């Protein structure tokens, strides 16, 4: 294995690593939880063998730059990294939606992959991966199963709040009124989709849309978004590695 460049996406919930060889081929992928000790997690992922060049992205990108890894470390923002990653995986991509652990990004691309506009949620993590994780916890369902579970629900139950704390209150009061938990779970997914679709419309998105980030692994989100936006949606096989791949390609 001829590891030349590593892309590291240090997010709020997880850290992804993609390693490229001299020919730009992916030779390794890895993922770890961010935890309260992200530097240790980065070191563990690199497994004592940092490639000569590292490009870090994500909210913890500066942390990697300051770790003294004995490699040449540069940083790039998530926006640029996702744009690069998406363009490499699906050159026809014109818009990107990334729903990560604590933020949501909508990015509009020019043909060729250049960023034209972008929007991010600010301050609050409502409607992100963390939100889904929290409500899945309330339902006592593992996060990986929460999407399929919600897909068994019947549509039509409106959830009004996007605040993680109040959504829990709303969900429990709906349960108390006798609604089926699957319907409530579907309603929660639909609420995120409404909010996300609004953000995409604000950037004036055009298809094809690439859906990236950990939440793109949730089949209920993918289906509801495709319905709401009524457009072609590209879903990469490794949606949470798009940022790390893009970072490596930006090096």
């Amino acid at each position, binding site marked *: 294995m001829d590891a030349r460049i590593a892309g590291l996406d240090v997010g709020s919930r997880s850290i992804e690593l993609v390693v490229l060889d001299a020919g730009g081929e992916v030779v390794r992928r890895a993922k770890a939880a961010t935890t309260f000790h992200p530097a240790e997690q980065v070191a563990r992922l690199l497994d004592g063998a940092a490639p000569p060049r590292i490009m870090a992205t994500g*909210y913890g990108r500066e942390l990697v730059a300051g770790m003294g890894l004995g490699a040449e470390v540069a940083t*790039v*923002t*998530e*926006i*640029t990294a996702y744009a690069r990653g998406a363009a490499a995986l699906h050159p026809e991509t014109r818009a990107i939606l990334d729903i990560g652990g604590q*933020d949501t990004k909508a990015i509009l691309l020019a043909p060729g992959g*250049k*960023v*034209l506009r*972008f929007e*991010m949620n*600010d*301050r609050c993590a409502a409607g992100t991966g963390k939100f889904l994780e929290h409500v899945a916890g309330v339902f006592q369902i593992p996060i990986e199963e929460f999407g399929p579970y919600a897909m068994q629900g019947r549509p039509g139950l409106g959830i009004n709040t996007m605040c993680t704390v109040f959504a829990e209150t709303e969900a429990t009061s709906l349960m108390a009124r006798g609604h089926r938990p699957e319907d409530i779970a579907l309603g929660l997914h639909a609420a995120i989709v409404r909010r996300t679709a609004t953000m995409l419309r604000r950037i004036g998105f055009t298809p094809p849309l690439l859906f990236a980030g950990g939440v793109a692994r949730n089949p209920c989100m993918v289906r509801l978004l495709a319905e709401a936006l009524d457009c072609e949606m590209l879903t990469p096989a490794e949606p949470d590695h798009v940022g790390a791949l893009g970072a490596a390609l930006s090096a």
Partner: protein
Amino acid sequence: MSEAYREMWEKLNLDIPAHDGLLAVLGKFYGDIYMSQQNRLKGMEYLDFVLSEVHGLRIKELQDAKAQGRKVVGTFCVFVPEELTLAVDAVQVGLCAGAEAGFDAAEKLVPRNTCALIKSFIGFKLARLCPFTESCDLIVGETTCDGKKKAYEAFAAHAPMYVMEVPQQKNPADRALFRAEVVRYMEKLEELTGRKITAGNLAAAIKTVNAKRRALQRLNRLRAAQPTPISGRDVLLINQVSFYDDPVRFTASIEKLCDELEARVAKAEGVAPEGTPRLMLAGCPMAVPNWKLPYVIESSGAVIVGEESCIGTRNIRDLVADDGTTLDAMIDALVDRYMKIDCATFTPNAERQANILDMAKELSADGVIQYTLMFCQPYANEAIRVGQALADSGLPALAIETDYSMEDVAQLKTRVEAFVEMLK
């Protein structure tokens, strides 16, 4: 500066321990944001000095002026004509409104969802932290936005308030209203100081303020050079200090700094490496010590080349015609000049869009960052249309809505860095 001025601050009834704390934070903040800059102009030492003495020596000067019978007038807005204040030999100062101080107390007088600038001036007063406010014989408010209007009503119970009406349109009737308000303010100043405003003293005051605005215009012309010779942070500081400092001394210092800049421009010496994206700010004012966004921008690989703001070009773009010989003609000239201000509280306000596009062109800006204080309806509304106008003209733009807290700095940095990457 603490010990030397303690007695003065006690006389002004400041909360001494809290004020010491504020100065310590301000000093640290200034050190990190300003003193860390490379390749700074020698002329900035004057600004460093003024800022380090902003609650010290400058307040002492105000007390000395008061001891000589002069009055101190505090303001919050570029609509209050400084020319009139100077004509009665009073001192005009901008009041503290740029830091998150006393917000808990302020929220007892104004709703929580009020912009940080309003909460700040109320907080500074209620927490007894602003020696400028405490030195004022008169505080002049103005009917620009609803937030300020209603805040002044509540503030009047705590400070000697006077409110000037500023119209919201620019029709002949609005001009007549503003002229009447200028005359009413003149009468108020005459009553306060016991001095008459005459053609003689007003002509001199117009000259003084025009000279200050000319010096700042010269600064803006020089910074438009490629590469830009001065950081945006430094120019913002200069604009901020222009509201506090003695106008004649300030003008002389800025002219001197401009001489230094001219030499730099002649040698094509830039403050940032070649190819650094040039960004222009547009929107709400940034009062001392609100340097958050400029710092984020200039530590993300860009340089700021313009501030389309009240603490920036909105305050200095237009001069008062100085060819009037009678008092009436001078008042007309003042009214004409102030009615040109393109504040977002006017409707319609199409000239602001045109001014932003012209300014971006003159400065060879690579992009525009719109800055809106959270809960500032007038500028938040205009940000949408200005954003559209910028997109139509092909200028990349980013709209930021924030306040004085530091909790969103990491998110702001990501957005600004991504915007800068987009321009490269």
